[in-house]
């Protein structure tokens, strides 16, 4: 038994070593840079100046707090609306009907499509000079591109949210559909025979049963939409910017002194995501204890 354990540990060691060096090494290096330690430019003092500058200096604080607000707004809206749409569609798709396989295929079609492609697709379709705007122009419903609502490159992140919804509905859908299919409809049948109407059945039976899976998926989607930069970089505006885009800007700044602020922002993003994961783990553990 003891030798078996040692054998497994030895076999896993090379992989774990590489992952540990890459993950924890870069995390440590990034953390040190966020503390101002960057020997390449002769900065060896360790302090929290970059964090303080990013969050509280006159130069950056406005951008930071508006960026944080936008990031939370986009992540929350994308997660919540995607989950809601996915539940609705999954409830429809679990029924037996002609062409169900085809419908499920189309529902999950955009799962393998990269976020970048979705973002570009959003520009091509929904920007003020995009395909939809031009078609409406042809139909005489809008007279100039400016009459078409600004769905991309807008201050409220509508385009970013729509792009994430487009992509994440399929992700949520595949999880919710799998849960619903594994549960079957008997619990709802029991509730119905006990007098629960459609809404009561959804609220008191379906939702609580899919909630653990839905929560896991929500944390993943929230963390991803909160921390990724490609979609907001393409579909966002100059101000306010989501935190990951701000962090990238600092990182790409030719002035290497800005690297500390970039890393400080990345650490703040990672910290918020970690807090969310701990909240999720706490809720999950509580649910597991209950059930």
């Amino acid at each position: 038994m003891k030798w078996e354990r040692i054998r497994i540990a030895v076999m896993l060691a090379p992989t774990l070593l590489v992952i540990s060096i890459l993950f924890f090494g870069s995390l440590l290096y990034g953390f040190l840079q966020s503390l101002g330690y960057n020997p390449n430019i002769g900065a060896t003092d360790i302090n929290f100046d970059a964090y303080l500058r990013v969050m509280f200096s006159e130069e950056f604080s406005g951008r930071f707090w508006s960026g944080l607000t936008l990031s939370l707004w986009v992540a929350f809206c994308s997660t919540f609306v995607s989950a809601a749409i996915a539940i609705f569609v999954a409830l429809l798709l679990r029924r037996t009907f002609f062409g169900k396989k085809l419908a499920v295929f189309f529902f999950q079609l955009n799962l393998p499509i990269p976020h970048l492609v979705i973002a570009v697709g959003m520009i091509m379709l929904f920007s003020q000079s995009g395909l939809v705007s031009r078609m409406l122009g042809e139909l005489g419903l809008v007279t100039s591109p400016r009459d078409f609502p600004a769905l991309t490159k807008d201050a409220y992140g509508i385009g970013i949210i729509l792009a994430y919804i487009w992509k994440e509905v399929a992700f949520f859908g595949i999880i919710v559909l799998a849960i619903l299919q594994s549960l079957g409809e008997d619990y709802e049948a029991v509730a119905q025979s006990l007098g629960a109407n459609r809404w009561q059945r959804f609220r008191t039976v379906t939702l609580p049963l899919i909630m653990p899976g839905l929560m896991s998926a929500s944390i993943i989607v929230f963390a991803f939409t909160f921390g990724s930069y490609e979609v907001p970089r393409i579909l966002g505006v100059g101000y306010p910017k989501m935190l990951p885009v701000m962090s990238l800007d600092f990182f790409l700044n030719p002035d290497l002194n800005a690297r500390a602020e970039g890393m400080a922002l990345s650490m703040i993003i990672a910290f918020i995501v970690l807090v969310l994961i701990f909240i999720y783990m706490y809720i999950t553990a509580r649910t597991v204890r209950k059930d």
Partner: protein
Amino acid sequence: MTHLSINALTKRYPGEEKPAIDSLSLEVESGKLVALLGPSGCGKTTTMKMIAGLLEPTSGDILFDNQSILNIAPEKRGAVMVFQNYLLFPYMTIAQNVGYGLKMRKVDQATIDRRVGEMLELVKLPSLGDRRPKELSGGQQQRVALARALIVQPNLLLLDEPLSNLDAHLRFEMRDLIREIQQEMGITTLFVTHDQEEAAVLSDKIALILDGTLQQYDPPMGFYESPKSRAIADFFGGVNFVTGTQDKGRFTSDLGAWSAPRGIEAGSGLATIRPEDIEICEAPGENVVSGNIVSHVYVGTHSRLKVDVGAHQFHVVADAGIIKTYGTGSTVMLHLPAEKIWVLPHAKD
């Protein structure tokens, strides 16, 4: 109390050639417990789901007190179903599970608490209200499922194989509890089972369904003493069959002529007698045949014998102590009481 009428109820699933249930008609009197009995896949659960409104019939009608309920939403029919696998909501406490139906009816919490207490008392689980379903045994979960159904005072209680997931001891206990509660509350109850003994012990009447068709609808004794076909006799454990001719209360076969006043009056017939109705006797006489014991199994309360008589083999249930007198290979005389022989019509090949 509700009188249930089922009229020519048929359910045909899309793409299926044969209906799952075909022109089923039966009447269930108020306050009675009726078993829908049959092997797996015969259509009994389909019937129950149509009554509960969880499935739509292809044709036919279902009436509660002479009023069709087909246009009433399932949640308003008052036909509450208890499933084989309990289906207690895992994220609720036992008390919340039991009170679910009242909560959906927006009954005030004080009344719900009081009624939940009464129901848990009724199913003999008074102190488990705060527990979660997974902390309960299968038998306890089934009692909770029963309490959850009874709390809404249903017009009709539908029990879908409620005992099949329980071990033998719990099954007997639960069987008694169901009968006791059903009689106490007087709820018209339909009970699905594939176990003929369970159906016989629990129900006032049995509806035997084979292959989607109602075969016989009678009190339990009718299935043992006067089955309407060989298939029904087979299903109820009938194993002794002799072909012959019936005429004016006398049945003639290659084993001789017997007095057999019950069953068809004349024509080609199949005489059947239950193993427990055959008596071992000492002297030849009317309705007595002689044969050799080919196997003998002692099962504690009784013995099971197989006796070769001519080209036939009779199964006999005898006293446990018979082994002291007759062993395997012994010759034995069997008395087939005339009033216990039942003659079915039999088509010659």
